[in-house]
């Protein structure tokens, strides 16, 4: 079976798995990294949202053979380490402050999407708009959408 090496949450990992297995399953079923959740498997619910090289992506839609040793994947488990200090990432703190989570199933993906959105908007040198928030595709079946909007604004102010 082919070996695949990539960076995961700051560490180099090597897995023995077929090229076409999507990264979500490599993370969850092979490596036991279960923060990214399955919600659709076809890149529409966004529950598995993680980062690749600092940008949001959905590992359910990327075969492990498509990435290489230089690619850095960050899951919710590694997010805090991407921010300065020993604590949580400011977006995670904002999530706690607004008590966003209900069942919590979608929230790792929501937070990873939020961080990437703030970074993207910041790179464009502008503030977050209602349209930016409207463009978030992550499903929350508990319906926490309004708190997510508030938390993103709070988190953005501290990032």
């Amino acid at each position, binding site marked *: 079976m082919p070996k695949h090496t990539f960076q995961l949450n700051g560490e180099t990992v090597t897995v023995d798995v077929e090229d076409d*297995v999507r990264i979500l399953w490599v993370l969850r079923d092979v490596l036991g990294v279960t923060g990214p959740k399955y919600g659709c498997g076809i890149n529409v619910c966004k529950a598995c949202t993680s980062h690749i090289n600092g940008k949001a992506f959905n590992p359910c839609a990327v075969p492990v053979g498509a990435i290489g040793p230089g690619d850095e994947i960050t899951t*919710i488990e590694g997010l805090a380490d991407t921010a300065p200090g020993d604590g949580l990432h400011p977006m995670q703190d904002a999530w706690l402050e607004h008590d966003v989570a209900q069942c919590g199933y979608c929230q790792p993906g929501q937070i990873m999407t939020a961080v990437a959105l703030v970074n993207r908007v910041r790179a464009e040198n502008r503030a977050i708009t209602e349209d930016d928030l409207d463009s978030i595709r992550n499903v929350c079946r508990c319906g926490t959408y309004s708190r997510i909007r508030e938390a993103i604004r709070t988190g953005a102010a501290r990032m």
Partner: protein
Amino acid sequence: MPHDQTTDPPATGLSRRSFVGYVMGGTGLVVAADLALGAAPAQAAGLPIPSVPQVPELYDLNDFLTHCTMPTSGLIAIHVDEQGDAHFALPRMEVGQGITTSTAMIIAEELDLPVERVHVTLAPARRELLFNQLTGGSNTTISTYTPIRVAAAVARKALLDAAAIQLGALVTTLSVKGGVIFDLLGNSLSYGDAAALAAPAQTKQVQVELKAAAERNVVGTPQRRVDALDAVTGRKKFAMDLTEVDVPDALPTMVCRAPDLNGRPVSVRNQAAVAAMPGVTHVAIIPTGVAVRARTFGQCIDAVRALDVEWKGGTVAGRSSADILEELRSAQLPLAVPRLGATTVEGDFVFHFRSGSALEPNCAVADVRDGTATVWGGLKSPIDAQSKVAKALGLPQAKVTVNVVQGGGSFGRKLFSDAAIEAAQASQAFGAPVKLMWHRADEPRQGRVHPMATSRVRATVLLGSVISFEQRHTSVSTDFTHGLGERLTAEVAALPTGLGNLGFSETVFLLSQELPYNFGVVTQLLNESDRDFDRFNTSSVRNIYSPDVRTANELIVDQLAAKLKLDPVAFRLKHLKSGIVKNVLRRAAELGEWGRQMPAGTAQGIAIHKEYKGATAVLVEIDCRRQTVDRRVRDAVTGPRVTKATVVVDCGLAINPLGVQAQMMGGFSDGMAQALTYSNHLVDGHFLEASWDNSAYTRQWNTPFEFRCEVVDSDREEPGGIGEAGVAASMAAVACAYARATGSMPTEFPINFHDPLHFEPKSFVPSVPASPTNGLDFVS
């Protein structure tokens, strides 16, 4: 006696705050209370049912659920460990509704311990609890509030008694702060040290007094969820997050399902070829499809797609939504009052199927071997799951262990154990442990749905008064065979006179539906075709009948107000019976600035609902202007936009106001989706929707820019139910606002049901879509 004003004293003869509990013998402090304690629903036996008021005013579904818990004398126990922390295994299921947090608060309050030192876990199936381990009907806090308080108070008393001896002080002179006991001289003993001294050799019964309302400092204050940190760091574990350490060798398993709804497998034509695919370990027919076990779920998906299966036809082969509508119309019970020209206001409403699925798909872990079975899953009826798994495997119930894991949402879905049964069957067939998960495509297509229904309403106005209001609700059957049905069977004799002869559905309908207005002669009847369980997979989706029933009601209420030339709020206030409903309505109107000037094409809408021993009022503003309806968001179902929502709720004693607000927001998201966008289309024997890009549940692009929820101070001392209380009034308010903005009353829900499909239906064979490979094209 109206249940929302006072509560009967417990039948024990003790005062309302005085209860009996137990300090268990042995080592370590374990205290217990009867789970049926304090369950004092409205008196059931021998109560005459007057023609007016309606049944739920006297004895509602929650009284019934609470009543069911009374004869089951299972004990619940709190353990105080050597660190002085309290541990409690809640015989209910956490699915996001916040009961682990509120239960920790209730224990912390009575025990004078910080909330973070109370550890609430979920109890496995306990058969001795009989009916008293079902999470549904928003009944958890209503039914467990008193017993849990009593157990905590017993623990506090045992700790203080032990400390009094150790410190040589009178119990009455001791005080507790943060889990440390102090005497008047400043000597102290921690709960941990006291716990070691507190356990008697033999179990003894003790009498305790509960805290008075004025002494509370945890209950009623906003508390964040106890599992929030785990949720935002990815550490919170759901069933599919159990790893090799938890259940060794439980490999991913998925099921290939029929193209038709409830089609069943006959044979597999290429079993050997699929079994030889990469990663695949097992392939076997189970009753609901063909199960595949592999190293990864991705390889299960590939194998499911490769399977060549001969299927038996489904249970609604060739049928479509229009056919079911025709059936419902012909099953409609007649209205009693004839149409009387200009004095009649009426409406004929249609509510389409909608998926009840949560974001976490149906899933369970199972290990069946050597004549025993162990199951792990998010199960709201674990005792029922235990019984059904045992039956499916041909094992005695005592050989089946059911462990309850926190669930990723439920909305009624997890009352059923569909995935646990399949997982057990697959594990038995393979002779190996499995981690079975439904593909998302299976959820709307083969999973449980809210039944399609029609609602016929006719009201009569004479001389400026509403003299009759009739409603005939006709529905595809709701499946209650998840343990609640057993309760009904067992408890039917205890029901108020006249209810005993009704079927399950009619009983739930009668116990939950209340039209809270003085409208003269009021009749509300349900008719369900009784063989539908075999055809459709339904469940009591969040708030069961109420969202549809109340939407039909409130739209007609607005029509009546218009006919009598009264403002919708003024009309409601004039006709509402209940003070608490009037109160939330007034407050919502005030907070939401009812009656403010709105541009053409936009409007406010308001609605109320009374259930779960509380009341909810929702005021929304909707924008139906062309430029808004046609706004473009990539691959989005947009349409009318609710721009602002105000929810006011009186839920009795709010244990955790922050949790109440969260439930109202969630209930609003559900209600709005059901009014505007969210449904299942039955076409030619199967549902077309197969994923979140098809099922238009509320998304950010539908979310109001402003959402506000106020939890009013209640004059009632007992908690009501909150998990479902926000749905009905939200759906109704959105529908009423839409009617006012467009000038035409919607009669079919969701309102976009007949719009051209916004998606290309995914294949039925294979039953699941291919996993995409282009994810890196969308990196953002």
